[in-house]
């Protein structure tokens, strides 16, 4: 926190408000940042208050499980952890396929607290990690903005990012996911980078590298950093802003950062083997070349060296580029992974990787979701951008590039709204601070741009009226007092709108744990539908310790986390063919499915069925994706068209196609389903009466069904052991194992699982 105290003479435009003692302004800064932290923390607790302190959604359950494992068995065992409960029969090398930053963070917090005899359960640490880190993110954003513009702007930016929905969407209490800490690491890395660029000191650039290392260990999004910083350097070179400081900071950062990033098992040699990282090394080489030429130039400043400099620079650039292309061509460097490639060729995923396309977070972004996540910032950050470009310097080149690239990515994928949000907050912070600073210039209130901050933390309408008449005295010159106060009031109102919007969005859109559902009666009475935990609890207590549960991959992590049982596929969708096999089982008729299931020796099958309570995210609605993915691997046996009616509609009632009515998923969903609405057996989600009813199951029996029919678990009969030709088994596992290696590239960093 002490760095707050030092005023950066760097770009200190003369702020009257900061002309008084550092101690005072430090006090204000610290207070505002603490308030921001507080507000950010509080605004993320809706889920905990409404329900309980519980891990949300899907991926967080894996993170929680592996964190618990690490806390229990220690760090090294965690790194070598081979999880035989996932991807049966393949298992999963967890240590080598996760970004361990998250687990290490909460694990060390846990260790520290217990060393101090503070016995907090690891679950609570995991639940509250993201809200706590949101405060750290606010602080690092403050630092970044202070580097860029001024401390007033920094305070604005900090307050914005503390509550903006675009960020709180991934960091509410209980959403224990990489993004929660990654944004902090991102902002910190950028701040340190700018600081090192300014000072040109090795110390800061090593700090940058270390912070980058933390980012690498935390999130797959580190690729954004390792491409953006070189881009910045490149832009500076083009703009002829080469300097020793740039040279030192980048080369140190690149070398140290590279070495450190390769220490993460999951990353391994990617930084020197894949195209995602080639920009960095290319720029590094280029920088070296330019540095050399500069040196030559400095030997004899006057004379023909200048031409040589330009020509040589261009040649070096071309050379580096051709080198990379060549290496890629001969296969030393892996080409772009599909996940990364789909950012440029926006149609790529839809055609080639249905499993990516099937995830709702990977859809493009409409303007309304931009507005929903950023509200007033969405139309104020261009102002900040404008002024950053108008009075450009090395750092502002960076923030400009940051803004432009981030806004592009956010446009392509909803998920990447997360990387846009911080820079939007920074730029809007700059915009607001410029304006309010000017509007309040005449009356020297040191707290002026600070007041609005804690106004937009919790809107006290009263304060506005109090503040309004304050711009008093010499109104003769400049804008009159009325205009000032009018403008002030207007902007206070905007900020207040922003804050109420943030609260509303966070509480309504982003704060449901999705494993506990709540339904509200007409009288406003709340009814908790706890079926998921009911089913997982049943699994954990009343099935064999090593029972294999087959379900669609969405529920893999939850079954492992809450049910503590072996799953076939889960949300880390690294093995498409295995998933396709499960999809095929679900999509084929009972007999064929039974063969597949015995081949995978499945004991139980778990399906989600929302028909009784009208829960729309259930398996029948996701089913068509199972069919598509299965068809991708087994085009002979599964045809998507067979599951649609002649008219090409997807329906479950008597109109539905025969294949649909007889596939395993359908039968397991509707087996003996006669309750629900009126008439009995009415499916509320699809709004139809199932077409195939009163059938019997030959190879399975109902093992358990939860109170509201949401989760249905079936047991495979042992008695029919159909003779599966062993060679087919062998063949299939071989292919699966072969796929495994090549699929490491497309390990889902975190697929959410709601389908579009």
């Amino acid at each position, binding site marked *: 926190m*002490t760095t707050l*105290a*030092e*005023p950066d*003479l*760097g*770009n200190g435009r003369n702020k009257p408000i900061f002309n008084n003692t*550092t*101690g005072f302004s*430090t006090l204000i800064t610290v207070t505002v940042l603490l308030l921001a932290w507080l507000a950010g923390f509080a605004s993320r607790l809706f889920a905990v208050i409404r329900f*309980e*302190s*519980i891990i949300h959604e899907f991926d967080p359950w894996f993170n929680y499980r592996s964190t618990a494992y690490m806390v229990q068995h220690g760090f090294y065992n965690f790194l070598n952890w081979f999880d035989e409960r996932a991807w049966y029969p393949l298992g999963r090398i967890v240590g080598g396929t996760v970004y361990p930053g998250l687990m290490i963070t909460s694990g060390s917090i846990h260790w520290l607290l217990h060393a101090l*005899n*503070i*016995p907090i359960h690891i679950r609570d640490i995991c639940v509250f990690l993201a809200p706590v880190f949101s405060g750290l993110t606010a602080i690092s954003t403050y630092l970044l903005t202070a580097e860029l513009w001024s401390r007033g702007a920094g305070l604005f930016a900090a307050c914005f990012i503390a509550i903006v929905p675009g960020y709180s969407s991934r960091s509410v209490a209980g959403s224990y996911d990489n993004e929660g800490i990654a944004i902090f690491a991102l902002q910190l890395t950028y701040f340190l980078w700018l600081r090192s660029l*300014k*000072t*040109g000191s090795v110390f800061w650039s090593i700090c940058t590298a270390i912070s980058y290392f933390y980012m690498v260990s935390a999130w797959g999004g580190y690729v954004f950093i390792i491409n953006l910083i070189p881009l910045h350097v490149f832009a500076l070179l083009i703009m002829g802003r080469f300097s020793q400081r740039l040279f030192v900071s980048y080369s140190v950062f690149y070398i140290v950062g590279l070495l450190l990033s390769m220490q993460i098992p999951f990353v391994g040699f990617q930084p020197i083997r894949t195209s995602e990282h080639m920009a960095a090394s290319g720029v590094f080489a280029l920088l070296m070349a330019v540095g050399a030429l500069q040196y030559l130039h400095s030997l004899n400043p006057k004379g023909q060296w200048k031409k040589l400099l330009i020509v040589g620079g261009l040649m070096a650039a071309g050379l580096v580029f051709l080198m990379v292309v060549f290496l890629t061509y001969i296969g030393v460097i892996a080409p772009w992974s599909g996940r990364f490639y789909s950012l440029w060729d926006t149609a790529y995923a839809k055609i080639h990787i249905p499993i990516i396309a099937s995830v709702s977070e990977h859809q493009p972004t409409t303007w309304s979701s931009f507005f929903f996540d950023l509200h007033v910032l969405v139309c104020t950050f261009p102002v900040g951008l404008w002024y950053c470009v108008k009075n450009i*310097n090395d750092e502002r080149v960076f923030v400009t590039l940051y803004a432009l690239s981030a806004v592009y990515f956010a446009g392509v994928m909803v998920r990447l709204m997360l990387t846009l949000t911080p820079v939007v907050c920074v730029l809007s912070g700059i915009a607001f601070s410029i304006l309010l600073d000017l509007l309040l210039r005449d009356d020297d209130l040191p707290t002026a741009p600070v007041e609005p901050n804690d106004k937009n933390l919790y809107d006290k309408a009263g304060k506005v009226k109090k503040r309004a008449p304050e711009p008093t005295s010499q109104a003769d010159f400049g804008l009159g007092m009325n205009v000032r106060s009018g403008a002030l009031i207007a902007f206070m109102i905007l900020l207040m709108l922003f804050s109420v919007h943030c609260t509303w969005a966070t509480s309504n859109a982003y704060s449901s744990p999705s494993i*506990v559902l709540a339904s509200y009666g007409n009288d406003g009475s709340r009814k*908790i539908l*706890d079926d998921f*935990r*009911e089913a*997982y*609890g*049943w699994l*954990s*207590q*009343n099935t064999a310790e090593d029972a294999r549960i087959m379900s669609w991959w969405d529920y893999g992590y939850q079954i492992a986390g*809450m049910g503590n049982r072996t799953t076939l596929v889960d949300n880390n969708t690294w093995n498409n063919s295995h998933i396709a096999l499960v999809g095929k089982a679900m999509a084929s008729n009972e007999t064929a499915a039974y063969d597949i299931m015995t081949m995978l020796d499945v004991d139980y099958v778990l399906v989600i069925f929302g028909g009784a309570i009208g829960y729309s995210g259930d398996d029948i609605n996701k089913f068509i994706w199972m069919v598509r993915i299965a068809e991708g691997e087994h085009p002979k046996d599964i045809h998507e068209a067979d599951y649609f009616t002649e008219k090409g509609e997807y329906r479950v009632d008597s109109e539905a196609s025969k294949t649909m009515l007889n596939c395993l998923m359908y039968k397991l969903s509707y087996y*003996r*389903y*006669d*309750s629900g609405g009126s008439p009995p057996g009415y499916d509320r989600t699809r709004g139809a009466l199932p077409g195939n009813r009163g059938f019997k199951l030959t190879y399975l*029996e*109902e*093992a*358990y*069904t*939860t*109170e509201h*029919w949401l989760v249905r678990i079936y*047991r495979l009969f042992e008695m029919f052991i159909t003779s599966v030709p062993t060679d087919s088994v062998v063949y299939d596992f071989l292919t699966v194992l072969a796929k495994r290696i090549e699929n490491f590239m497309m390990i889902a960093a975190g697929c959410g699982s709601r389908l579009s």
Partner: protein
Amino acid sequence: MMPAMAQLQFCVLFLVYVATQCTSTNVDTVSSGINIKNVDRTIDISSQLVKITSKVTLENTGKSPVKNFLLAVEGTGKAKLAFIGTKDGNNKDLRNVETDVKGNDDAKFWRVDLKESINAGSTASVVVETVYTKALQPYPTSITQQEEQLVKYLGNLYFYSPYPVSSQKTNVILNTKAVETFTKVKPFLQLDGSISYGPYSNTAAFTEKELVVHYKNNSPFLTVTRLERLIEVSHWGNIAIEETIEVEHTGAKLKGPFSRYDYQQDHHSGPASVRSYKTLLPASASDVYYRDTNGNISTSNMRVKKDSVELDLRPRYPLFGGWRSHYTLGYNVPSYEYLYYSGNEYLLKMRAVDHVFDDMQIDELITKVILPEGTTNIKANFPFAVTRLPDSLHYTYLDTKGRPVITFTKTNIVENHIQDFQLRYSFPRILMLQEPLLVVGFLYTLFLCVIIYVRLDFSIHKSEHPHKD
């Protein structure tokens, strides 16, 4: 429950006994001067337990007055015996001591000391109460969801005793007319819900005759396989109690599928299953929580009565035969009801085990008592024989050298064991100031550091070189 005084007295007596017990094992002989005039036995097998209450009328046929007499439990039953208690005619507890008798090794004996001795020729009546667990075998051992649960009781038709019995009656309470088979030894009479045998006259000592009843019993067959009870005493006026409970349905196992449809349609489906049960907590229990490893179990409700807090607990899923469940139940009680002190001497009186559900049977109980930091010379008195595990230390908020933990365990527990244990210890009250002082000291140093930081910082950035814009 017995009145507190008597209870206390009982405990003390018992503990004196326990103390002696561990040194010397005492041996008795069956005195021939005692004859049992009449036994009136009630065997209650309507729940999952077997509760036998026998009114025994002793007669001293010898010359000398009798101070004590022997109780016996047949070899088949002694493993399942959970509790044995004796009262005299006017419902006062009598002290009973486990003992051995030469020549009868398979049976198990207790010596009961009478309050006042029976003179020659006169009689005294004693009430013997025994509770057996796991004495009812489900038969058939597995049933489908719709079927009723049938169980078999194997017992002794006669009152098993080392003395000859002149006349005895036995009444078996079933609470059901649906009886498949039962031992028919005249005279007997089957009323609805009960079977009465006898009177039988002049049965010799140690007579055994098999009594078999095979009947419908849908009462919940729930067994608490493990109960860990954690009592954390704080001198700031609060005692936190947390019970980690593992429950299993030990009735007839569920055969075949579970059908939610049938279970929803008619409420008679799954007659032997357990949807919910009631747990009684002390009346002063507050902020109760009920959760498992996956978080809160949202299906429960609490009713505050004037003498107790009644929890209606529903497991996440109904319990069928062979299904298990696992949960944690916790609450706070004010310490002034259980913690008495004079000066630095404290006395803690709490229940060693508390009510889980009616007719409960607990296989294994582990009770841990966490005392405040700095307590010394702890003395424990237990109402019944327990095995005391080595003490340990427990660290929690603001602890420096850890809190002493008293741990004891006992197997095969029933409701009759809900009795108080006592814990005497001394605690210097001045230590109560330790924790606040810790906090104060910590904050003080923190602020001190910050102050120093700021000063340092002030001096640092003068030397900071300006960088270009």
